[in-house]
Each structure stands twice: as structure tokens, then as C-alpha cells.
């Protein structure tokens, strides 16, 4: 039976918005899941909650705010607006190369094809104006990543022409005290800007509520991360993708609920001595760059074929900061600033390479992987340009060599799942299993 591609075709013809597509897709998945695997429904709920929130934002009388890079999301939520984390779009579209290609090609009309697929999709979607609800504002930052530093200001200019207000944070290159203060100062301006945008005053009470929810999200996320440190690791590698979403949705109950559930299930599996590897965990791998969004199937396959589980990826790894003095605005702003600086992969492992090296070192220390893979997204040239330093460190300190392969995490046309698997298999056979 041929696959039903009516939804995809509608998007390709420009007749359906991305948001509607994602909502329909996720609802379809949920229906199927109800029949086949009702136990796993919880894994999809967050997707539904998020995409429907994007879709219905205007209907619910809220402002829809696009954001890219590290920005104080909790404040957007506290102003009762819908925060749309743009990176979720390319990541959501990437498993379908044809769909991603529509937006990538639209962007490539202007920008070089070497630009990161994440940013190409975001720019392409803006050029084609196909997200769905028109954004009421766009907030972004000068993340230390060239691709987004080019894509965002371009999107800013396109949106500004239409009269959409935009706000840009200047992310300091280094992580230090001066940088934190710098971000706090900018955030204060951002609060006034939001007041003007929404026509409401900043509400400390509402913000406190959001802080609590965010804390809950990061506490559970921390616990899930700890679960992954256990041996055998009870959670599948594929779920690492969620780390991206958690950032965008941390201020909502749904995210905390999901992670709590993930933790419960993981704890249960651990008790039962079960995990994603059918014959028990033989190896654990750390991904030095991002998750393979376009080919997450590689993770399932590694578990099945090699009993090897991905325990952490460098772009999803968080040592999430927690608000300690909720109610103390100055203190909370500092925590937020720290989050903005520490966030490893809201386009993260960027800034000075030493941050990246430090981050990966922490992963090896905490998760004790015995396999190291740099499955490098080609768009992310600045991580590629630190890769040797990082892998040299791993070799010297932990005695583990690293596999390098080039992939396009968003554009599946670059390398197929089979090609990626073949390269990984060669490595597993020759270097890991000797």
C-alpha cells in the first residue's frame, strides 16, 4: 500500500501551514498509538500540547512570539504569550527529507548551502510565510553560531518590513560574571519591551508561577539524566531528542508531566533490569555533537544490532540551573542569564571551544561511555572546528578514540539512514568490537 502523503503534498503545494501539518500528524500518530501501544501515549502528549498551543495561540487571544537562540523564555510565558521555539520546526520536519527540502531550497536561493539546515528551514519558512499563525513578535539573540547570526537578522528584516516588532539580545561570547550582568541588563530592557508589546504590566506573581513550573521541569530532567548514568541505562537514545523541546516548554506543566512520567517508566525499567538493548547493554555511546534529528532511527538500530545505547549528546546535555529565590527578581534574572549562557545547545557548544571541551568532559565523567562518536552535522562548522581538540581530550583523558562522520542533521538528502548506519557499523565492527 502506498503511503498516504496527502498532508505532505498539501504542505509542498504551499496550501497547508507547518503548524496545521504538525498538529494533524501528531493527532494521527496518537490515534494509531491508542490502538497499538496505549502505554506509550504519554510520549506524544507533549507534541500535541505544543503544536496545538502554537496553532490556537491567536484563537485563545494570546500573542504568538517566535524565539531563536537563548532568550528568557520564562518571561514570555509570564506575559501570557505563546513562545514558539523555532528550532522545533526544522527538527520536526527533518525526518521527512522532502518537506525539509521545500524550506531549505527556498532559503538556498539566497544563502549558501553550507549554512546550517536548522537556520535554512527557519529562514525558508519565513520567506515562504508558511509557519501558520503570523508571529506577533520575534525575539532572538546573537548566539555564537554563524548560521543563526545570519538567519535571524535576515528574518528580523523581513518581519520588520511587515511591521512585526523584533528584539535582539547580544549574547556575550565568553561565559563569565561580566556576561551574566550584561544579559541581566538586557533582560530588564526586554521586560519593558514586553510590557509595551502586550500592553500589560510585568506581573511578579505570574512570573513566580512560571519559575516554579520551570524548576519542576528541570528537576525532573535532572533526574532523567541521572537515570541515564545508571548501568544499564534504562532509557532509549531516541528520547534524547526531547531535550530540545524541554527548553521551549519548560514553563508549562505538560513538560514537567512528561519528564516525571519518563522518570517513572525509566525507574521501573531499571528495577526490572530492562533497557532498550535486547541483550543487555554492551556499550554506551556519547554523541559529541547533536542528536541525529533526521535519522534518529540510527539510535534504535544501534540498540538492536549492537546493544549499544546513546546515553547523552553534547547539544542536549544540561546542567540545568534552578531558581533558588523565587520572588527575588534580581536573583531570578541572574539565574535566567546563567541559563542563557550555559545552555549547551540552544545552538550551544559554541562560544570558546573550552566550553565545549568542558561540557564533553563532564559527559564522560558522569555517564562513563566507552564509545565516542562525532556524528557531525555539517552545518555546524564551529563544532567541527573544535572537534579535534575535543576528541584529543577524550583520547588522552579517557583513552577512547572517536568516530567522525559527516551528516546533515536536517537535510536527509545529504546522507541516507543506510549510509549512516554503514559507517557506524564499520566503526563498531573494527574499533569497538575489534
Amino acid at each position, binding site marked *: 500500500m502506498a503511503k498516504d502523503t496527502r498532508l505532505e503534498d498539501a504542505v509542498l503545494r504551499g496550501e497547508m501551514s507547518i503548524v496545521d501539518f504538525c498538529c494533524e500528524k501528531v493527532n494521527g500518530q496518537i490515534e494509531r498509538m491508542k490502538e497499538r501501544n496505549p502505554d506509550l501515549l504519554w510520549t506524544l502528549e507533549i507534541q500535541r500540547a505544543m503544536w496545538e498551543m502554537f496553532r490556537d495561540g491567536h484563537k485563545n487571544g494570546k500573542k504568538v512570539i517566535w524565539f531563536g537562540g537563548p532568550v528568557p523564555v520564562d518571561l514570555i510565558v509570564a506575559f501570557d504569550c505563546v513562545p514558539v521555539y523555532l528550532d522545533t520546526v526544522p527538527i520536526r520536519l527533518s525526518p521527512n527529507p522532502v518537506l525539509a527540502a521545500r524550506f531549505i531550497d527556498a532559503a538556498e536561493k*539566497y*544563502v*549558501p548551502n553550507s549554512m546550517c539546515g536548522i537556520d535554512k528551514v527557519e529562514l525558508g519558512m519565513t520567506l515562504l510565510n508558511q509557519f501558520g499563525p503570523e508571529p506577533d513578535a520575534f525575539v532572538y539573540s546573537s548566539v555564537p553560531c554563524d548560521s543563526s*547570526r545570519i*538567519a535571524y537578522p535576515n528574518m528580523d528584516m523581513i518581519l520588520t518590513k511587515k511591521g512585526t516588532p523584533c528584539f535582539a539580545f547580544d549574547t556575550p561570547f*565568553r561565559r563569565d560574571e561580566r556576561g551574566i550582568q550584561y544579559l541581566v541588563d538586557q533582560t530588564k530592557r526586554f521586560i519593558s519591551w514586553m510590557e509595551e508589546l502586550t500592553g500589560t504590566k510585568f506581573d511578579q506573581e505570574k512570573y513566580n508561577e512560571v519559575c516554579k513550573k520551570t524548576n519542576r521541569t528541570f528537576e525532573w530532567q535532572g533526574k532523567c539524566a541521572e537515570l541515564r548514568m545508571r548501568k544499564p541505562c534504562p532509557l532509549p537514545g531516541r528520547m534524547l531528542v526531547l531535550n530540545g523541546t524541554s527548553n521551549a516548554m519548560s514553563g508549562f506543566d505538560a513538560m514537567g508531566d512528561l519528564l516525571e512520567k519518563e522518570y517513572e517508566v525509566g525507574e521501573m525499567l531499571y528495577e526490572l533490569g530492562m533497557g532498550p538493548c535486547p541483550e543487555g547493554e554492551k556499550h554506551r555511546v556519547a554523541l559529541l555533537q547533536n542528536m541525529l534529528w533526521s535519522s534518529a532511527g540510527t539510535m534504535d538500530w544501534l540498540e538492536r544490532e549492537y546493544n549499544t545505547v546513546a546515553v547523552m549528546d553534547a547539544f542536549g546535555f544540561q546542567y540545568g540551573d534552578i531558581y533558588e529565590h523565587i520572588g527575588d527578581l534580581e536573583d531570578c534574572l541572574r539565574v535566567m542569564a546563567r541559563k542563557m549562557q550555559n545552555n549547551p545547545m540552544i545552538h550551544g557548544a559554541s562560544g*570558546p571551544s573550552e566550553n565545549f571541551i568542558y561540557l564533553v568532559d563532564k559527559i564522560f565523567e558522569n555517564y562513563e561511555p566507552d564509545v565516542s562518536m562525532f556524528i557531525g552535522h555539517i552545518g555546524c562548522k564551529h563544532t567541527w*572546528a573544535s572537534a579535534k*581538540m575535543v576528541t584529543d581530550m577524550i583520547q588522552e583523558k579517557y583513552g577512547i578514540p572517536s568516530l567522525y562522520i559527516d551528516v546533515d542533521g536536517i537535510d536527509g538528502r545529504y546522507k541516507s539512514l543506510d549510509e549512516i548506519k554503514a559507517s557506524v557499523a564499520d566503526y563498531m565492527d573494527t574499533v569497538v568490537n575489534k
Partner: protein
Amino acid sequence: MSYQKLFDSKISTEAAKAWRAQGKKAVGTICCHVPDEIIRAAGILPVRMRATDCVDSSSGEVWMSTFSCSFARSILQYWMDGVYDLDGIVASDGCMMPSRVFDNAEYIDKKNGKNRFFYQIGAPRIVNDMTLSYYVDELKELIERLEKFSGVKVTDEALKEYIAKYNEARVLVQQVAELRKADNPVINGQDFSSIILAYTDYPIEEYIEMLKEFLADAKNRKPYTEQRARLMIIGSALDDPGYLKIVEDKGGIFVADALCFGTRAFPGQLEVDDKDVLGSIAKYYLERLVCPRMMDDRATLHEYIINTAKEYKVDGIIYEKMQYCECWGGESVLLEDELKEAGIPLLTVEREEHLANAGQLAIRAEAFIEMIEK
């Protein structure tokens, strides 16, 4: 001493060698937010690093991968090969590529037990009062480090002295650029590019002398008369007059540019506020037009390009994009349409630091010239 050195684009290390022979320090600088005035005031010679004539960047590639801008990668190669024998590097985070040159150079240096001087300035990408004060703080820290390193105290007097010198050079370079406005200019693109590149290697005093001598002699030079089209060049870092030569051999003449190694590096004058000398420096460097690394002055950059093209009576613009250079690569989104609106023809070409496919550039350039010649 003659000004002929101005026309030799090869990297010259003699000035740095002579400087260091006196027991003084010389550092490499990378990118546009490193104020040379400060480095000189600390008694240190700044040498702006470039990669002219680098044929093989395979060692650079080992560290920075094939997915890196070859200009940046070649600088790392030169650094590793010892082409630049200097006491350290001061960089500003222009785009991520030079930042990685800096990171890798520092890492390799430590690994080899050398421990030279390394400092990277975090330069804002947005211009307002808040970012300016952040930049001032970054420069203050730079000064502290430099003082410790060279043992020379950076005083306001010294800063003012060098500001005056660099201002003088700015005026002179602008005068050289003026020459290009003539219908039959006495310098072409290759000449101008070499003149700008010379600035990277020599102490400012020496550079000023050379410029003065050249300007005094300029009217004796034979004007270029055979050109079929007046061109402007914009895009990624270009430190190779040989590249311009290919186009000029086909009958074009470059009369204007918007390049890192071009007029754009010497705009206006650094106005000093006696009460806040460092602040004046910061203001000048932050506010001057640099490149698409800045996030909020794209419109000004585009305006600059269009106005310059008009002012210099340009027939067409050649926009060269280094492979893997996002910074310049992504500028087309709005620029293309704006140029179209202004009626300025545009040719976009990809390139690499090492001039590999000269023939391909030649054919594009020639066809472009045929298209725009009057």
C-alpha cells in the same frame, strides 16, 4: 626607503622581526574589533594576520575540518608553520571561524608547552549604550593583560598619540581611495589591495611614510585607460590581489570595495573625547561599519555599498563568497533585491583562499564585463 613595498602583497615579516630584535613584543591580531591603538600604546606591535599565497592548508584542515572557511584555516596553517613568528594573538570574535583559529592556536601552543600571549575580545554585535559599556569593559581587561605582558603602562597620552597616528593613516588611505574616482585612475584594484595589505605588516609610522611618498608620486603614474567596465568588489575576506588580477586582465577595473582588507577598514576619524579616551576608542570601533557580523546595521551596510557604487561610478558589483563563509554568504537575502532596485548589476562567485579554478572566475568575469560594458 621607497614606497615600492606597498605593492608587494606577500606577507613580510621583516618589520616584526626588527621590532622583536629590539626586545619588544609583537602580536598577531585577528578581526576588526581589535584596536591597534591600544596595542601600540602598550608598546606592542600589532600584525594583522592573513593568509595570502597559502597553497596548502592541510594542517589547518586537520584542526578545523574541511567544513571551515579556507581563509581562516590557512591563517591557522601559517601560524602552525611558523610563517608568523610572534609573541601571541589578540583576536575579537568576528565570526566563528577566526574564533576557532584563536582557540586552536592557543590549544596547540599550550600543547607544545609554549604558552604565548592569547586574548580574545568579546565584541558586541549590536550597537547601543549598553553594549558599548560592555565593550569598554572588555577593552579595559585587554589593557590590563597587555600591561602585564609587556610591562608598559597604557596611558591616555600614549593612546592619544597613537590615535593621532592612525587617524593620519586613515586620512591618507582615504586620499588614495579618492584617486580611484577618476575616469582613468592611476591605481587599479590590485594596486589598491596591495596598498591595504601592506598595512598589516608594518608599524603605522612606516606605513604613513610609504603612503605619503606614494601620494606625492601618484600624479606621475600612468593612468589605466583600457578598461571596459568599472567594478566594485564586496564579500568575504580577500587578501589576494591575484584574484583581482584575473578580473582586471579581462578588462575590468576595480575602483571601489567593501572588504575587510579594503577601504572599509579605514573609515572617518576617531574623534577623541579627552575625558574618556578609551570610551572614544570603543565608540569608534563599535560604531564603524564593519561587516555582516554586526546584527543591527545591515541596512547601513547595504546603503554604504549602494552609495559607494554610485559615488565611484561603478558599472557592476562582484560579490565573492568564500566557501563556508556564512557571514557574507547570507547577505544576499535582501541585498540582491536592493541592488536590483538601484539598477546595479551583480555577479556572485564562490571562491576559496587558494585560487584553484582561475579559469572559472575568468569566464564569469569576462561574461559579466560583456554584460555591463557601455
